[in-house]
């Protein structure tokens, strides 16, 4: 089971902050996951493809979309950060 997390304006698109789901076996990378999410929700697909959105797998930032999600317990989609 993998937990998907959405923050900031992405949460406005999904309507939820997190969702647990069993990733299909053919989803090996972040790119695969993007395609999978786009297929079920094109608006979300577009939102997570927007400039500045970063992905973290198991609380570690991904450098690119080729990173594996096979051992992912937690995948977070994060729009540009803004604290302080």
């Amino acid at each position: 089971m993998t937990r998907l997390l959405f923050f900031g304006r992405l949460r406005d698109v999904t309507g939820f902050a997190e969702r647990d789901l069993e990733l299909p076996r053919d989803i090996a990378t972040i790119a695969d996951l993007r395609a999978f999410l786009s297929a079920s929700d094109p608006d979300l697909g577009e939102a997570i493809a927007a400039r500045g959105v970063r992905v973290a797998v198991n609380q570690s930032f991904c450098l690119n979309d080729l990173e594996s999600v096979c051992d992912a317990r937690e995948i977070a989609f994060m729009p540009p950060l803004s604290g302080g």
Partner: protein
Amino acid sequence: MIRVVVTAEAFAPAHETACFAAARDDRCGALASFVGYCRGHTHDGVVTTLELQHYPGFTEAEIERLARQVSAKHAFTALLVIHRVGVIPAGDAIVLVAAQSAHRAAAFAAVEEMMDYLKTDAPFWKREAGPDGARWIEPTSDDYARRQEHGA
């Protein structure tokens, strides 16, 4: 010593700074600090609340990582970061950063650099709500420019 607190509770910056200062050692000659408040007025108009989201666990770990990055560059002896999350009414403190060091240059540099990182590199998402609705706030080009100066 680095202490990072992310809290949904309101905090009193002066009280927290006093506690932080009380624990200083006798080589400490400098304490620099910064408090960021939720403004009630911006150039966009009236603000009633700010909503801050964070990523529990990851946010704290990232701030600690950024603080260690700052400590590798500036010889501070103690650093405190308190960041509020959740719904924050106008006028309340959002963030407190304080640093102790022997001399002032390191304390100033540590606080400023930590604040710059919090604006652009720490996992927080900020939404400003006013009478005309709400909007997500993203770092400004100035925020990114300041961060670049630290070679991050």
